[in-house]
């Protein structure tokens, strides 16, 4: 007992006091720094100008967060939940405080206009938009335990169903009817019903084709996630091919979308005056402003989405299917053993989540112009919503959605007001990443999200209720209501009414269940046939891979679980890919050389990034979705530091800049480990991807991250590249001129050689490190953190070191990338183009094995080049594949007109393909093929092409098996090393 008390004191009390002191000190320091230009940061002379106040505000914000964290951690259990739920408000207050101090310190003033109804209703609108993807996402996550990237495309399928319906002969007259002052609901209702049904079956089909197979193979959530990424690529590509990249609007009735089709909602204007207030008060309120017009289309979306959530909650709580789904979510094995058909539940989940997304999509199409890229824009904020609401909790996701939506709406006036005052009119661009910034802050405070706080509060509440048995079990129970005399007659009848309504809803759920079962059986026979055809299609796509596998396995008897076998497989695959590179067409020796040089430079960049990801995720077991964050740090720092001084750069030597960039990235990686130590795997993933998005938006919106032009346009350009000065205006250029090479051509080859050298050096370094005791510690952390801690390893330090090393490698890749592109634009950090592709390289190549990383990166790079040859082939009959593309065009045209024409109207074809000239969009066929390559590689082998070599101690009896001695020499030194590590 005394021991316990002492430990309690040591663990809780002391760090708390120390943190409080630190927090208060930094808050004070930042405050005096901002107002009196004095203190650690302001007085040290390390920072000046804009940097000074950026650092000051960061310091103040951080100390504020530390103080909130202390409050959250020290609160008694009774108060903890309310405090966690109200942290968003506390964080907001601190943000305002920071702005006020900052703007006063700069002797400026800022006016922030809050239009109350506008903010509230825009907030509702944003929450409904994000929730339309997030509900399906959280449901899949709850039951199937992976993040399904294809949800966003499911939503779009719904939108396009609505559009197709609008263009149909039956409904076009409604959509196209002239303005008549009254609204026709027919098309809107039919569109949402059809979208709901069609997307449900699409979801089911995809589950059957892809995810069911992966489930059978016991694939990890990461593999399922990358497979869903492939699915989303294929779906998006199909939407692009059928509906083109143009935007279309869904018009249920012309009157519906007039700028007068709004409900006027009275509003008030709250002006907040920050900074230097001479004559103005802090707050002014005026009610005399124009009412806010809330568009009908937005009302439909908000009602539709919230109705769907209520439906879903009722379904989960009140029906047999809902109970089964909850049971599977809690414990699949137990659920299976108590007679629940797991596959059936999985199928129903895909069915439901896709349907809700489709419903949202059809309603969203009535507001936003729809194009196939829209889903991607909403996917990441939807992830923020589900993480905020604790993944898998439906009430949590509802609250998360509301918070994120309101936050988004609330932050826009603040960013506009403060941005204009701080010479940053582009600051409003940050509204897009506000959910992420907030999420990062909140995860530091409450590592398990808001939903888990609510859930634990709920459990507490239910426990209390069970303890005093008198409380009614169901609030709408008729007898209880009659017994309670305190309730007035009106409210009683109201509650009666609600009780009846809920019963009606339940009855309708039963009815819809019956309907679903009926239509399911009816459709099943057709579906089975369709599935057979699709299976055939999959077999066709699989065949190059399966033949490759067959050949290597049969001819060479490769055992990929030994070091030698793994190397052999690597060399074979590398040679195959290299032969493909040599086979790529080109017109002259010069262009062929440049082509090969480019492929190897890209291979170096993607290979290094994949090494970094492999170290973080494959070896240490931290799911890092922010590789591009570290790559971006590398590129941006190198670019900024070596850009000319007269154009906002710093004019450093590129090598020095590279070393600094690598160090900065490593420090960022090291620091990231500490606040994220308590986070769950998937929360760490969303946190890292959020960081990457923040850096991308900063590149768009932050003037300090621009260099290379006199007018400080977006982007970083004109930076020096290594050896460039040495290479140009020197003998090498003379030789180049003599050979008739255009200027710059030799440098391309130099860059490729640098990429190859960097890659080999890093690979050697990593192999050495990973076969050392440190590598074994990292692997043990991946396998079981607790055991490794038990053996006396400081897990946190090792994780931090791994993050730092990986970040440094990624930064090197970023530097190479900057030199290759000669300029840096925000788009290069696009998560779809970079993060997901690096992940695909990592999963396809074989996680945990650096040889696999090279093969994976090589495939990802080459796929682009190979399919590009097909993309450009339409232009000229002399190009390779021209015949094939013409053939594909005719097949596509037949599919759209003759097969699809049975479903959709001629108008829907003519809207997309002018003059009925149906052509296949080749870049999107490329996208679909890349997606299929990813899916089929995973279906073939979910461990990747070159799986990790299991490192097991060599048995003393088997001496002739000569695995290379870089992992384990023999038992004795290994035991020795193991003993040493424990100290």
């Amino acid at each position, binding site marked *: 007992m005394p021991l316990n008390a002492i430990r309690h004191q040591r663990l809780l009390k002391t760090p708390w006091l120390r943190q409080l002191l630190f927090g208060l000190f930094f808050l004070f320091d930042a405050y005096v720094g901002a107002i009196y230009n004095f203190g650690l940061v302001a007085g040290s002379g390390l920072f000046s100008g804009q940097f000074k106040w950026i650092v000051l505000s960061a310091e103040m914000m951080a100390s504020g967060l530390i103080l909130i964290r202390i409050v959250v951690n020290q609160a008694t259990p009774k108060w903890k939940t309310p405090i966690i739920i109200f942290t968003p408000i506390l964080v907001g207050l601190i943000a305002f405080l920071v702005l006020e101090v900052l703007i006063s310190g700069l002797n400026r003033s800022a006016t922030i206009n809050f239009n109350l109804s506008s903010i509230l209703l825009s907030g509702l609108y944003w929450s409904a938009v994000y929730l339309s993807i997030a509900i399906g996402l959280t449901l899949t996550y709850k039951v199937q335990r992976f993040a399904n990237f294809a949800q966003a495309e499911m939503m779009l399928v719904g939108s396009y169903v609505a559009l197709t319906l609008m263009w149909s002969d039956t409904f076009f007259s409604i959509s196209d009817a002239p303005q008549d002052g009254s609204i026709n609901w027919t098309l809107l209702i039919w569109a949402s019903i059809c979208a709901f049904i069609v997307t449900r079956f699409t979801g089911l089909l995809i589950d059957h084709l892809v995810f069911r197979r992966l489930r059978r193979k016991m694939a990890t959530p990461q593999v399922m996630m990358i497979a869903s990424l492939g699915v989303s690529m294929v779906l998006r590509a199909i939407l692009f091919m059928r509906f083109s*990249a143009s935007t279309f609007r869904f018009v249920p009735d012309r009157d519906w979308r007039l700028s007068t089709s709004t409900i006027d909602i009275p509003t008030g204007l709250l002006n907040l005056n920050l900074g230097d207030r001479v004559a103005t008060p802090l707050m002014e309120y005026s009610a005399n402003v124009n009412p806010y017009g809330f568009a009908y289309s937005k009302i439909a979306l908000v009602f539709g989405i919230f109705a769907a959530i209520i439906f879903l909650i009722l379904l989960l709580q009140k029906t047999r299917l809902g109970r089964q789904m909850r049971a599977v979510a809690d414990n699949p094995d137990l659920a299976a053993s108590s007679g629940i058909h797991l596959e059936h539940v999985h199928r129903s989940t895909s069915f439901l989540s896709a349907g809700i997304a489709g419903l949202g999509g059809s309603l969203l199409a009535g507001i936003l112009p729809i194009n196939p*890229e829209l889903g991607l824009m909403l996917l990441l904020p939807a992830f923020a919503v589900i993480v905020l609401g604790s993944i898998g909790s439906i009430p949590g996701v509802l609250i998360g959605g509301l918070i994120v939506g309101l936050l988004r709406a609330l932050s826009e006036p603040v960013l506009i007001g403060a941005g204009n005052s701080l010479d940053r009119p*582009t*600051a409003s661009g940050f509204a897009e990443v506000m959910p992420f910034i907030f999420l990062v802050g909140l995860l530091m405070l409450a590592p398990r999200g808001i939903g888990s706080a609510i859930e634990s509060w709920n459990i507490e509440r239910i426990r209390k209720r069970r303890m005093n048995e008198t409380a009614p079990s169901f609030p709408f129970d008729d007898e209880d209501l009659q017994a309670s005399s305190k309730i007035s007659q009106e409210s009683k009848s109201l509650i009666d009414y609600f009780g009846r309504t809920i019963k009606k809803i339940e009855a309708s759920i039963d009815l819809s269940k019956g309907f679903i079962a009926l239509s399911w059986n009816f459709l099943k026979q057709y579906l089975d046939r369709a599935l057979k055809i699709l299976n055939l299609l999959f077999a066709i796509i699989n065949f190059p891979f399966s033949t490759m596998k067959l050949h290597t396995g049969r001819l060479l008897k490769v055992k990929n679980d030994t070091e030698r076998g793994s190397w052999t497989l690597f060399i074979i695959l590398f040679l195959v890919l290299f032969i493909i590179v040599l086979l790529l067409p080109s017109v002259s020796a010069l262009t062929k050389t440049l082509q090969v040089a480019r492929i190897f430079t890209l291979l170096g960049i993607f290979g290094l990034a994949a090494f970094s990801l492999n170290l973080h995720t494959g070896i240490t077991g931290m799911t890092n979705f922010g590789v591009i964050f570290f790559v971006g740090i590398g590129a941006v720092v190198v670019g900024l530091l070596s850009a000319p001084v007269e154009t906002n750069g710093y004019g450093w030597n590129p090598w020095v800049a590279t070393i600094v960039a690598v160090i900065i990235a490593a420090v960022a990686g090291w620091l990231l480990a500490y606040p994220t130590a308590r986070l769950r795997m998937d929360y760490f993933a969303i946190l890292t991807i959020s960081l990457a998005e923040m850096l991308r938006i900063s590149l768009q919106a932050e003037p300090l991250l621009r260099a290379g032009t006199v007018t400080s346009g977006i982007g970083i350009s004109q930076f020096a590249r290594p050896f460039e000065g040495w290479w140009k205006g020197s003998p090498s250029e003379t030789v180049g001129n003599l050979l008739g090479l255009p200027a710059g051509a030799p440098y*391309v080859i130099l860059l490729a050689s640098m990429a190859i050298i960097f890659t080999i050096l890093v690979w050697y370094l990593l192999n050495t490190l990973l076969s050392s005791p440190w590598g074994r510690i990292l692997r043990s952390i991946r396998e079981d953190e607790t055991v490794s801690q038990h053996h006396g390893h400081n897990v946190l330090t090792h994780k931090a070191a791994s993050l730092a090393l990986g970040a440094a490698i990624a930064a090197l890749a970023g530097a190479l990338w900057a030199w290759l*592109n000669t*300029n840096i634009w925000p788009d290069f950090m696009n998560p779809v183009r970079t993060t997901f592709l690096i992940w695909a390289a990592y999963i396809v190549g074989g996680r945990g094995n650096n040889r696999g990383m090279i093969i994976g990166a090589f495939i990802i790079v080459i796929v682009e080049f190979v399919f590009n040859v097909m993309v*450009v082939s339409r232009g000229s009959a*002399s190009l390779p*594949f021209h015949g094939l593309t013409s053939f594909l065009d005719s097949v596509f045209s037949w599919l759209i007109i003759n097969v699809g024409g049975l479903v959709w109207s001629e108008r829907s074809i003519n809207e997309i393909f002018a003059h009925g000239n149906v052509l296949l969009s080749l870049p999107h066929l490329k996208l679909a093929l890349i997606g299929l390559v990813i899916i089929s590689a995973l279906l073939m082998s979910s461990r990747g092409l070159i799986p990790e070599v299991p490192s097991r101690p060599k048995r003393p009896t088997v001496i002739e098996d000569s695995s290379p001695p870089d992992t384990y020499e023999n038992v004795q030194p290994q035991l020795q090393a193991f003993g040493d590590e424990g100290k």
Partner: protein
Amino acid sequence: MKSINAFRLLLISVALAAFAVGCGVFGGSETVKIGLLSPQTGPIAQYAPGFEDAGKVAISELNATHDGDYKFELIVGDSGCDGTQAATSAQTLIDSGVKVIVGAACSGATLGAIAVAAPAGVPMVSYASTSPAISTADDNGHLFRVVPSDAQQAVALVAVASAAGASKPAVLYMTNDYGAGLGDNFAANWSGDVCTQVGYDPAEGSYNASTLAQSVIDGGCDSVLLMSYATDGAAIMEALSAQGFNGQIIGADGIADAAFTESFTDTSAVSGLIATRPRPGEESSAKSSFEAAYAAAGGADGAIYTGETYDAIKLAAAAIVSDPDGNLVNALNKTGVNYAGASGTHTFDAAGDVLGTGYEVCQFDGTNFSCPRIWTADAGLATN
């Protein structure tokens, strides 16, 4: 299993046959391939059909003019609006034997592609990259563009806004190189008060038109400068109208087109808009004849920079024809002198930029589109 193997064999032979047919080399000595980098995927994919349609119009006109001498072929690659992807596509275009690359649209894509094209000795003519970084790119003289830099149009917009009586304008602009360039330059040149400046990302789903409109109204602004593309511009104008804004709205060449009304559901919101765009050559009929040809070919609606795309291709073709075997960079510099195109009269300066010949000031009366005034650097605003 045996049947599957037989099936595989069949598939392999079909694929090989297709490959063999595809690889068959045809063509004659007079064929000239012109590459076009179009943003077929990525954030501005919706404008790609317009660029490609304009390109097809140019190529079919060229083939009609040079019938018998030359056969022009347009090879379209996907820029993805991204430096890395555009560079890879540029490499594929060069591997297919193009003499010149027209493109790309996004400035980042153009700069990425030139890093591949210049070392291979293939010049590029961009039709929509407005970033100042294009002028200073390390391109060894290989990079040209037929769109003027934003700085000048911003000056024209200042003159238009003053003439319209704006005293407290709000500036709404896209946070890409085009929008931010125009917006920043406008704010820098505007002598009076700027009521509020708001940047937004034009991708659907990342901005809220009604919040942008609300910020204009809450700031008490009397006019709006709108640096947008067609779809987002229409959404913002509809939202402004829905929130009861009745001040002057002034736009730039992203929306200065009769087809802008196609982007509206409620076309009443477009009335009164003033917008500037590069002025075509004084006695040139190139603009009207291109527009007629584009409409006849069924070009995509709501397109932007179609005239520039058309000009870039025809200019490049003219340079190739003028000196078929010589240095194409020199030929482009020679051809690009007072070249009367559909989007203005183009003269390349030392950096490969065009200065332009001033701007047309267009307006919508109801849905009727007309351009009654012009603006030039020397004379300011004048009637057309």
